[in-house]
């Protein structure tokens, strides 16, 4: 179901989903060729959660994200050039190469700190919410994390604080293990959490919580906009678990692209390798979204292909920019660690 939004807005959401998908897919060959090192995490398969969810926020709101942050930054309008340069450790990156894929921040977009400890940001998000409440500036905080983050003790401690002090914070848990891929070994449930469903945990702390289909952009948009409204009314924290199906490219230790995305796949997956075909046919949120756009006559296939063409060119430029950007001077490592 499409979000109930004007056509222009829907096309903008579509564009942002394409930006994320093509940005992420372009990183895989760069890493394979050794253009950058270290571990990295892609947002493919979660676009229909992040893009509509973050479109519900105001420009001044705070966001916290984790190691899987590229999609959130791009959904919020980050410059793919500076993001790619950061991931490649270059001087033109958002953090001048000091953060990398794990820690990219863009304060002007509300991202003050990106932690790669899975639950590290959850207490921090209660902090920006506490500050906003104290300063009465009307800002809310959105904390984006994966299901694994709930396994760390920081999560329940922060949920308790947020609930006790009625802090203006939305906890958006993106559970990308709907059918038990990844760490989980049994269907529909993480094998590592006794609390099931995951929303039992926030509910124990009296934080209103709901589970939604993260592949359904309309549900995501409606749920998050209502949650945001409640938070702005002063009702305190809200918790949403959005469930998605893990992208097959992340089932190996290192991401691998089984199939480069093209909008034509929305209507024909016959060229996709057999073992990953089902994901592209029924679980790929981007392809679901563009099929819905066409079915609802909000866009033609040609219009969508045109958006995608422009995005691909933009991402190619971003990669070119990042690869051409120099590394920081080595001695910068020993500078600027105190304000």
């Amino acid at each position, binding site marked *: 179901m499409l979000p109930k939004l004007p056509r222009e807005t829907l096309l903008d959401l579509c564009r942002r989903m394409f930006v994320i998908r093509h940005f992420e897919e372009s990183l895989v060959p760069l890493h394979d060729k050794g253009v950058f090192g270290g571990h990295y995490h892609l947002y493919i398969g979660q676009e229909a959660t992040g893009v509509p969810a973050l479109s519900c926020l105001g420009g001044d709101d705070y966001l916290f994200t984790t190691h899987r942050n590229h999609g959130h930054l791009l959904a919020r309008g980050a410059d793919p050039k500076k993001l790619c340069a950061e991931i490649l450790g270059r001087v033109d990156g958002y953090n001048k190469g000091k953060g990398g894929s794990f820690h990219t921040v863009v304060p002007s977009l509300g991202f003050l700190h990106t932690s790669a400890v899975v639950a590290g940001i959850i207490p921090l998000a209660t902090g*920006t919410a506490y500050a906003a409440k104290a*300063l009465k500036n009307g800002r809310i905080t959105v904390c984006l994390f994966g299901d694994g983050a709930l396994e760390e003790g920081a999560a329940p401690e922060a949920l*308790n604080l947020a609930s006790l002090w009625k802090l203006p914070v939305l906890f958006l848990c993106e559970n990308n293990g709907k059918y038990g891929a990844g760490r989980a070994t049994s269907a529909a449930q993480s094998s590592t959490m006794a609390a099931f469903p995951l929303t039992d945990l926030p509910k124990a702390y009296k934080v209103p919580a709901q589970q939604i289909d993260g592949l359904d952009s309309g549900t995501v948009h409606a749920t998050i906009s209502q949650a945001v409204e409640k938070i702005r009314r002063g009702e305190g924290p809200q918790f949403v678990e959005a469930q998605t199906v893990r992208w097959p490219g992340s089932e190996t230790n290192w991401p691998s692209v089984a199939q480069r995305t093209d909008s034509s796949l929305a209507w024909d997956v016959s060229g996709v390798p057999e073992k990953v075909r089902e994901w592209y046919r029924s679980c790929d949120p981007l392809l679901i979204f563009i099929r819905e756009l066409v079915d609802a006559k909000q866009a033609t296939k040609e219009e969508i292909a045109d958006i995608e063409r422009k995005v691909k060119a933009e991402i190619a430029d971003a990669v070119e920019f990042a690869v051409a950007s120099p590394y920081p001077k080595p001695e910068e490592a020993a500078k600027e660690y105190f304000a």
Partner: protein
Amino acid sequence: MREIAYYEAKFEALNEIMAADPTVHLINGTFLSLSPHRHVYQELANKYRDRVMSPPISELGFCGLATGAAMAGLRPIVDISTGSFIFEGWPQVANEAANAFSMSGGQTRVPVVFHLFHGLRGGGAAQHSASPQAMLWNNPGLEIVLPSSPRDVKGLLKTAVASDNPTIFVDHVQLLDVKGDVPENDSPIPFGLAHVKRKGSDVTVIATSYMVQRCLQVAERLASERISAEVVDPRTLVPFDMATLMTSVEKTGRVVIVDETHQSCGVAAEIAARIVESGFDKLKAPLRRVSTLDVPVSYSPPLEDYIGPREDRIIEAIRAVLR
């Protein structure tokens, strides 16, 4: 000059800081531990009901909350209370607050103060007696402050709150009743400025926190034996004032370092290494450390007393470097 107690100077600072800056919030604790003076804190809590918060017993949660609040425009002072409890909040202090400014490429400032009481307190036993400042010194990105006098606690607390960096404010309950001169309208004390607490010419005794007070007493005793000890207090470990220390070392050529962290990789070990690296040729005798023994802290009074930097151990070390 006006003489007041350490705890009074500390609360004068908190009061003045709270009045001057509405973005300062106090999170947790009493800032006076369980001392008989803790009612003083209640006055502050009554005065600033919205800015003095009592969180649940969730060090990890509220250390993170304060760190996040600092990123978004507040200047929180968190009372971790017993120093050992920082281990419960460690990930947020050591891995989030300390790294935020660097890994954001110098964009995100974290003006939070983590306040704690370290050291042997009398009956604290193994889990309430830690001096975590050496571990924290090994974790770049944190400023570390150790006041030792009423004037210093007031001046350094003001600088800690004004700092845009995460700051560990390492206090000691045995200091709370120490009396000393604190001028009215005193200026904040800049970080990175060691202070010569007592002039002397025979031996340089470098001491931190409560050990400064103990070493001043030792120095008085030794004066009657015509031993002139200079007592130097670094006051902040990060940033560290090497110049003032070396001026004293060059004068005396004999060094004893007295500090309550455990001996191995402790505060005294690091200071010793720095002195040897930059001024080995100035030393007339091998320097000595007096630290807490490398064992967990025992409860029973004679056991607790045995492992700390006792007066007799300090005196023995001073005599040894003077030989």
